[in-house]
């Protein structure tokens, strides 16, 4: 099928910063592309160019087959945008916000009203429909903003960090909404800082850093590249560390890395909790005392460490806003089990 979104050689420079340094994209119709990267990587710049808000210094792009640079208004008829900050007018009610957007899409008064009510119902905002959106929670505002992007039922949607700044509950709710949307066949370009989010929602992931694409593929392919799941273990007595390695290595899928100073072992595995249980049993049998043990799954940090050699927190002076706090996700992909310490080693 034809690509809903294409971009060739996008370049955008600000005074001292190159925000985009030659980006190519192709998003097949009906698929979801996750644009993954830290703050300032250039994600928002890409979205702004594709949604006609910003002119690139070089390169070209099409959305729904329409040239973004020469026919911006025709592009705008075919897209919905929900930005990084819920762009709802807080003094208007939920209904008034959506009704206004419908009219500006030129749906007509009657259809705008009907569509507003319909969207409020499907986003569980019915009860709050006639309250100024100032009174909404963060999650409700984001849902209202997303609803705004869907008013004209556009075939292509752009979501710029749809869950940044939301609490875990708001995040989960947003994910459900997006998953339903995608199930309906909408083409979606989504930017995110969270590997977990891209993993859950996107068919394909493009990792971007300093305005360049540094990796591309499905979530599984990327994780494989990063090194997958790892077992992390701290022994009580440093002299037992080597023995522990010899006992555990047969359980892993690669060589274990040792950090003698911290009495720590890090080993790639596959099989998750089962391997963990087995490892504990083996060590128990050998009477090797342990202080700490856990499973570690690759995070965005690991992706960045392995792809670029620098952590994702490393900021540059990009045009994007300051970082929101990282998610405190109880079911997150980071550390499982008892491990609560930091590990700076990238791979085995």
């Amino acid at each position: 099928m034809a690509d809903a979104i294409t971009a060739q050689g996008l370049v955008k420079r600000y005074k001292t910063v190159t925000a985009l340094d030659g980006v190519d994209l192709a998003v097949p119709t009906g698929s979801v592309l996750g644009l993954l990267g830290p703050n300032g990587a250039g994600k928002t710049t890409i979205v702004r160019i594709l949604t006609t808000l910003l002119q690139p210094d070089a390169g070209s792009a099409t959305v729904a087959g329409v040239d973004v640079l020469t026919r911006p208004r025709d592009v705008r008829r075919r897209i919905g945008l929900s930005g990084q900050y819920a762009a709802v007018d807080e003094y208007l009610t939920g209904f008034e916000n959506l009704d206004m957007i419908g009219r500006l899409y030129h749906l007509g008064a009657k259809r705008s009203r009907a569509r507003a009510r319909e969207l409020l119902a499907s986003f569980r905002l019915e009860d709050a429909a006639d309250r100024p959106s100032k009174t909404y929670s963060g999650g409700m505002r984001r849902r209202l903003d997303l609803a705004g992007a869907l008013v004209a039922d556009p075939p292509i949607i752009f979501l710029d960090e749809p869950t940044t700044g939301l609490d875990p509950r708001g995040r989960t709710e947003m994910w459900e909404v997006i998953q339903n949307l995608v199930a309906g066949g909408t083409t979606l370009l989504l930017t995110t800082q969270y590997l977990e989010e891209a993993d859950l929602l996107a068919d394909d992931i493009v990792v971007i850093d300093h305005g360049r694409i540094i990796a591309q593929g499905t979530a599984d392919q990327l994780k494989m590249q990063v090194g997958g799941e790892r077992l992390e273990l701290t022994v009580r007595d440093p002299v037992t560390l080597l023995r522990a390695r010899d006992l555990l290595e047969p359980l892993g899928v690669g060589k274990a890395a040792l950090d003698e100073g911290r009495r720590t072992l890090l080993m790639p595995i596959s099989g998750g909790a089962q391997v963990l249980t087995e490892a504990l049993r083996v060590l128990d049998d050998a009477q090797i005392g342990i202080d700490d043990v856990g499973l570690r799954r690759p995070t965005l940090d690991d992706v960045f460490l392995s792809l670029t050699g620098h952590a994702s927190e490393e900021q540059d002076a990009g045009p994007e806003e300051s970082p929101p706090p990282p998610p405190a996700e109880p079911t997150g992909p980071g550390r499982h089990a008892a491990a609560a310490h930091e590990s700076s080693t990238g791979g085995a």
Partner: protein
Amino acid sequence: MAAPTVFSDSYVVAKRNIIKIKRVPDLLVFTTLSPIMFVLLFAYVFGGAIDVPGGADADAYREFLMAGIFAQTVIFGATITGAGLAEDIKKGIIDRFRSLPMAPSAVLTGRTISDVANNILVLIVMSLTGLLVGWGIHSSVAEAALGFLLLLIFSYSISWIMAWLGMLVPSVEVFNNATFIVIFPLTFVANTFVPLETLPAPLQTFAEWNPVSAVTQASRELFGNIPEGVPTPDAWPLQHSVVYTLIWSAIFIIVFVPLANLQYQRSTSR
């Protein structure tokens, strides 16, 4: 593109801003209470101390005062456009508008038109207050209407300067400070609150050519607030106050409508 969408889109945007006047208590207070306060303060605090041509009593000053307060207040009313746009940019609302297939100029047109709606409301409130403290219109209905119209045209042209400025500055706070610093002297170094003759020479020349003086002089004449026998100052702008006001309004519109539209096309949230 098609003209009808400019009108309907502007209407939709203007409606949004007018709903806001209703819902934001601060804005409502600012627009209605502060003009009342100004009228009362000037009428009763300064009224007895300032001599105006044609009479030395407080009643004469109130007649003199109202056109000046009208002018100052509608100019401040025009800043709502700039503050509103600065805020909309910050909140990403301009991003949303710009991603819609609406007429691009409609956001600015709708915004500036809502300033006019706001200023009409303000003029009504102030006129009623003025009538209560002893001000009156001593001309024909047509002349008085022309006086109000001139105030609205002038302030509408200022709205476009504010629109441009509001999209240029980094925040609402900067915008408010910047406009305050400019508008305050501009509306005081004029014939708004004191007769021009009382100003020192360099300031007097500035004030004579200040468009704020012209719009004030014109409204005073059109409301019939200048007592019999008081001569119009010699300066050309004041001799031709209506024309001079319209010339400035036209200049502001011709220069700042394109500038503001250009700036709008470049604006994205920061």
